[in-house]
């Protein structure tokens, strides 16, 4: 009665925890203020650091006068390039798990200024306020050199990067002759796009608390997407052994990529703690949150050619993106355009241009969030020119294989996303012509776009410990920056061992836990979840073996496959009255605990033979004020196909939040550079606009489930990125439909609408 007769794994079992809208297991801690973030580990004798930032964009520090700061009672030290301790020379010592090719930035290394707001000194004092005060008393003189922060100028010297970063694939070779096909196309569009610099701006500012122990060991509380990445960095840079540096970061107040690389506050806090032999905290200010990585500014061209019936005959996508002088930051911007639609003539080109900025940094759906909107706006423009419904045009050129590689998708329910999304939105009621819907002075527009992201998996290890009382603790050194990793992992573990959720706990954010990759790229459920499944499967097999070995037990001789695990019991499928509780099994075997560890390894062989991806269809409604240019996104429907959804409640929140990101990207977010100063100027939350509550209205999320046993054993592809990809295009296309204005420069602020 509990189980169906043939169950390959427990995931489909009725009563399964997987797929349930479980409320976050860490919810109570978060709503009571009990969740502790990096700057919240208070410890006796804690000293506070405050960073001084460069006033120039490029040049040299001639002198740093720290006398007045040091004269203040309570100021412990001012660290600069002049008095820093010896630091490693080799680049590899400064590399981290997300470092691209090149030479990572080294704080306080020498007198050179590489970019505006570069950290150039650290004041450490007995109190935060005193450190901040002393920082104001430091006088720096510079020798300024000319800088280049203008991408249009810099792009004159653009170059083609290699495979310069993990996970990056250079564009595939051209197929057919796209330029000729474009010239000969019956209908064509050729558009130029700009994507502004965006800063991650998680709500928690980057902070590190480094607790110094008497034996010289450190406990580091860092804002990171990978505790092991933080640990490796501190050990390498300060020449410490792994057993003397423990990273504990149970909660991270958002990151969206900003915590993929160790940021300079970590270096500063560790430097000060080690040198002063004291516990030190360094927290960036909100303006200093604009002093490191960012979504890179990008210039793009997308040209499409088609026959009159909508058959695509040419796709050209070119992009030039900024990188720093010292590293080749790369992301996949253009490749998607060869993958999304069937087309025989495709040319994709991706280049980098060096500027005097900090190295860019992965930001939510890096590359795709920039490249896909350009493609999808161009598709909309082509549809308009063809006089065709944009959804119809997309279906016309739909592909079941990845044209870049010829490989079939392991699963791709995009067609269903289109259908269900369109139905929910009411797309069929759309009047085709631009400016055909209005309410008073408000022009109403409907637009749509497609989103795509990779489904990736990395190796990961998880440990598990089952107590005789039926409590299970599982752990892996991943992070939870907000997606609900604690909850999803708890569900997976509880599901496999048939335990109630509240008997299972998942530990993360601790470098003492088994290896997990950086949390990013939507691959945590896939990677760490598979490890959790693997270790719980092992415990399950062990328990079954133990039960089977009990000669006078009801489950004697049965194998794991003959059993169902539910409510803390091992139950025979053949007769549910044959059962033993986990406690009984362990007691009968004189066991108090059962422990194991397991590594999950991707199915490389079958994965290599397929294209792996998540897909989405986004429909948006906007209201544009014809006189004032203001835009309200009144409705968004996002239909997402991302394999199995572990927790529809938290997954829906992720996609919803990503749609909000898409609204910000489409309409608001831009770090504006003063070219004469080479400096971002709107570096605070007052002037760098992210959406507020009043900007966000109805967001409807649909999950189209896919069966996929190739992406990973859970069949879950992850939803962290897919929600944002395509949203800016859906909004831009809706604005076109409302106004008849084709806007290709993001963000589409009201001045751009008024001046178009």
């Amino acid at each position, binding site marked *: 009665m509990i189980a169906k007769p043939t169950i390959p794994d427990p995931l489909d079992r009725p009563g399964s925890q997987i797929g349930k809208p479980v409320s976050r297991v860490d919810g109570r801690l978060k709503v009571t203020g009990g969740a502790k973030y990096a700057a919240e580990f208070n410890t006796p004798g804690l000293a506070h650091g405050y960073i001084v*930032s*460069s*006033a120039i964009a490029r040049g040299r520090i001639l002198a740093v006068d720290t006398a007045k700061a040091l004269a203040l009672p309570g100021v412990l030290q001012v660290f600069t390039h002049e008095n820093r301790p010896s630091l490693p020379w080799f680049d590899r010592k400064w590399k981290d798990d997300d470092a691209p090719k090149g030479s990572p930035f080294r704080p306080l290394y020498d007198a050179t200024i590489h970019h*505006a*707001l570069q950290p150039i000194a650290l004041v450490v004092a007995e109190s935060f*306020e005193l450190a*901040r*005060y002393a920082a*104001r008393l430091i006088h720096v003189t510079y020798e300024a050199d000319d800088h280049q922060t203008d991408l249009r100028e810099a792009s004159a010297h653009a170059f083609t990067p290699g495979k310069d970063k993990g996970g990056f694939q250079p564009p595939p070779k051209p197929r057919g002759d796209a330029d000729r096909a474009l010239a000969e196309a019956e209908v064509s569009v050729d558009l130029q796009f700009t994507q502004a610099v965006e800063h991650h701006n998680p709500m928690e500012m980057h902070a590190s608390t480094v607790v110094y122990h008497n034996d010289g060991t450190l406990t580091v509380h860092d804002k990171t997407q990978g505790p092991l990445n933080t640990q490796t960095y501190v050990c390498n840079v300060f020449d410490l052994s792994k057993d003397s540096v423990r990273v504990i970061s149970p909660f991270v107040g958002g990151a969206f990529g900003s915590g993929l690389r160790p940021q300079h506050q970590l270096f500063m806090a560790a430097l000060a703690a080690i040198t002063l032999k004291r516990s030190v905290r360094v927290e960036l200010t909100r*303006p200093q949150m604009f002093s490191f990585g960012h979504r890179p500014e990008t210039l793009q061209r997308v040209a499409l050619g088609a026959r009159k019936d909508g058959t695509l005959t040419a796709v050209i996508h070119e992009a030039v993106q900024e990188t720093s002088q010292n590293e080749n930051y790369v992301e996949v911007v253009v490749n998607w355009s060869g993958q999304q639609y069937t087309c025989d003539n495709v040319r994709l080109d991706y280049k980098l241009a060096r500027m005097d900025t900090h190295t860019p940094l992965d930001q939510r759906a890096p590359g795709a969030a920039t490249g896909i909107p350009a493609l999808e706006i161009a598709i909309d423009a082509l549809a308009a020119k063809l006089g065709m419904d944009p959804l119809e045009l997309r279906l016309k050129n739909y592909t079941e294989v990845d044209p870049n590689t010829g490989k079939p998708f392991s699963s791709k329910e995009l067609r269903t996303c289109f259908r269900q999304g369109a139905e929910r939105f009411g797309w069929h009621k759309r009047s085709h012509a631009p400016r055909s819907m209005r309410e*008073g*002075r408000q022009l109403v527009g409907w637009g749509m776009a497609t989103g795509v992201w990779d489904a990736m998996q990395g190796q990961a290890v998880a440990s598990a410990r089952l107590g005789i009382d039926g409590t299970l603790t599982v752990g892996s050194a991943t992070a939870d920056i907000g997606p609900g990793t604690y909850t999803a992992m708890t569900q997976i573990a509880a599901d496999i061992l048939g335990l109630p959720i509240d008997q299972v706990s998942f530990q993360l954010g601790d470098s003492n836990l088994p290896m997990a990759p950086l949390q990013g790229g939507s691959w945590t459920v896939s990677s760490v979840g598979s490890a959790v499944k693997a270790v719980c499967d092992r415990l399950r097999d062990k328990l079954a073996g133990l039960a089977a070995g009990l000669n006078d037990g009801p489950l004697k001789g049965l194998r794991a496959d003959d059993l169902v695990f539910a409510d803390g019991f091992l139950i025979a499928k053949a007769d549910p009255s044959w059962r033993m509780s986990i406690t009984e099994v362990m007691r009968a075997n004189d066991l108090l605990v059962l422990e194991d560890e397991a590594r999950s390894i991707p199915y490389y062989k079958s994965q290599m033979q397929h294209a792996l991806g998540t897909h989405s269809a986004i429909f948006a409604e906007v209201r544009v004020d014809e*006189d*004032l*240019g*203001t835009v*309200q996104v009144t409705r968004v429907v996002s239909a997402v196909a991302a394999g199995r959804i572990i927790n529809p409640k938290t997954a829906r929140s992720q996609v919803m939040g990503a749609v909000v990101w898409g609204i910000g990207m489409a*309409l*608001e977010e831009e770090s*504006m*550079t*003063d*070219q*004469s*100063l080479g*400096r971002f*100027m*709107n*570096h*605070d939350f*007052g*002037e760098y*606009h992210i*959406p*507020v*509550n*009043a*900007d966000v209205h109805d967001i409807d999320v649909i999950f189209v489930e896919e069966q996929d046993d190739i992406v990973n054993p859970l069949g879950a592809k992850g939803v962290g990125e897919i929600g944002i990809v395509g949203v800016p295009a859906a909004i831009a296309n809706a604005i076109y439909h409302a106004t008849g204005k084709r806007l290709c420069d993001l963000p589409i*602020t*009201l*001045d751009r609408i*008024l*001046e178009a």
Partner: protein
Amino acid sequence: MRAFSYHRPDSVDAALRGVAGQSGTTTEAAVKFVAGGTNLLDLMKADVMRPERLVDISRLGLDRIEETADGGLRLGALARNADTAHDERVQARYPMLSKAILAGASAQLRNMATNGGNLLQRTRCYYFYDTGTPCNKREPGTGCGALTGVNRIHAILGASDRCIAVHPSDMCVALAALEAVVRVSGPRGERTIPFADFHRLPGDTPHIDSNLAADELITAIDLPAEGFADHSTYLKVRDRASYAFALVSVAAALEMDGQTVRTARLALGGVAHKPWRDPAAEAELAGRPASLESFRKAARVLLRDARGQSHNAFKIGLAERAIVRALAEAAGVEHP
């Protein structure tokens, strides 16, 4: 934030003794009053303002909203913005003011910010806030970074070659249109400052925002009896739906005689160093029918000397349309 001392007097006289002997304007003073703290403490953290002493006036009373003899309302200087906006008399008789206050900042900040403090808000110019850049307002003589830099949010009216910053307040735009009067106490006794004379244009002294003397305290803001309750509005245009400063805002108030405008008041925010009023534009409206055409004409008069910077020329056309929209809404004219 630099070192400062803190003092909390228990009377207006004691507060005034706290700032006695300071010369010049309050913008330049080393001893400053603090009440809501929403702007001053922010600027102190940014190291833009460096007072040596703070005199906490938040417990002096001065927080009542009372009737005046001439039928107007007296807004206590220390009444909170939120309490002012939600006061039934303000809502009924000065709805434009209520709307303007509620268009500004956030609910939390409006709970903290006082009416007097609102008048003394300083610009949100990026360069003013960033001590790593030149700014004549923050540090006279260093130049204006915005002139050659990022100036999308800057002035189109009344700017000088020293400063193109704008005043950030919404409340003040409505107060300008209402012709409020600022009541001030100081060592020379009490005085009143007409609202139009309270704030300054940048000229050669952009480091001075207002004409309030360094030894004076705002005690109240008087609203004249005429509140334009039937025909007024406040329209704010900004980069997001809430919690952002105005790119352009318009306080529009009309006295109507049937379909004809008898008198008009028009004040703009987000376009100049002070809330911007123009008698010529208002005169253009007076005695004319309430029509989109005449509103547009008045808007063009008001904007006749407007000059865009490299990134903000859009504000001129935007301001024109915002004026027309606000006047139409105030007059109850259908906007096709």
